[in-house]
């Protein structure tokens, strides 16, 4: 179920596929009947809003990872005039 949800939350194409053909979208995920039933009852508006949120956050994090720098070292060195500890 989490694998299905992870796909749903992060892949707009898969989300569209699910919204248009939910039963088809279940095919590769080994979901139980109960899990499929709960997905069919999902609040679609909430799902779309949540998915947008996840995708935005994901993009921010991937951008941030590219810029990551050792700010703690830079700032501590500057403020405490540390050379090496």
């Amino acid at each position, binding site marked *: *179920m*989490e*694998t*299905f*949800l*992870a*796909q749903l*939350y*992060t*892949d707009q194409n898969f989300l569209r596929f699910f919204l248009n053909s939910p039963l088809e979208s279940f095919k590769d995920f080994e979901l139980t009947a*109960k*899990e499929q039933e*709960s*997905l069919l*009852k*999902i*609040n679609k508006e*909430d*799902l779309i*809003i*949540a998915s947008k*949120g*996840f995708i935005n*956050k*994901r993009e921010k*994090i*991937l951008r941030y990872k590219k810029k*990551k*720098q*050792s*700010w*703690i*070292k830079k*700032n*501590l*060195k*500057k*403020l*405490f005039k*540390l050379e*090496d*500890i």
Partner: protein
Amino acid sequence: MPRFGIGWRREIADSILRNLDEFDVIEIIIDDYLDASRKELDYLKFLNSQVPVIFHGIQLGLASSLEVETSRLKKYKKVIDYTKITDWSEHLAFVRGREVEIHHLAQPPMNASTLVGLKKNLNKAKKIIGSLPKMENPASLIFPPGSDWNEIDWIQKILEETEIDLLLDLHNLYVNSENFQFDPYEYIFKINLQRINTIHIAGGILREKKLIDTHLHNVPDKVFQFLEFIGGKENKIKNVILERDGNFPHINELIQEIKKAKEHYHKARTFTKKRGDGNIPRATLH
């Protein structure tokens, strides 16, 4: 008496360090240091010698029927052991499927299968790292499909069946209670307050009729009210941490928010002492 502090973010690192006296504790995202050099970890150790540091994890995904990766736990252990910063937390969330990284915290299906997975993952974490994390309640915009329980029952079962202490994020509680229509005070009433180790406070916004936990806005009054309510009861809270991830105001504004949190917490405790019992009727706070 809890320590009041702030979540470390690189954009305000300079300001935090210049005002270190204003913070009793600093919370650092451990995932930012999993591949750090020894020298960088030495700087963390140095910071911990100036002010208590606690770690906050975001990438383990412990609340999942999928097994947590051993390699990730070993990386956490390496950083925790080297820095000797042993106080750590994570989330009651999943962050990946089999081959898909969400890169964010998702509330898992609140059911028996997730609970079994969580227990296994916590045991594995304890075995590898040597200690259990405090576990945070995540915010969500969608009621997790596949859930058999509501959030109040879910957190109660977790506290009954595991040994974890909670990191209670009051803004996440506020967001979920509004988005999924449950009583946040019932949630607080039903959990054992002795099991809350840390509290997070943060802000968000209302968008498309949903409350969103953005961490980009000031802490709303409702969150301070929750803090005051909890402050008035017997508890073992060790830390209250302000989280802000962006849209940063001047550091003095963040310091004022922390001071406001202290005032609300202590106001209730003063009232309790005067009244001589450990309970404040909910009605008197509203």
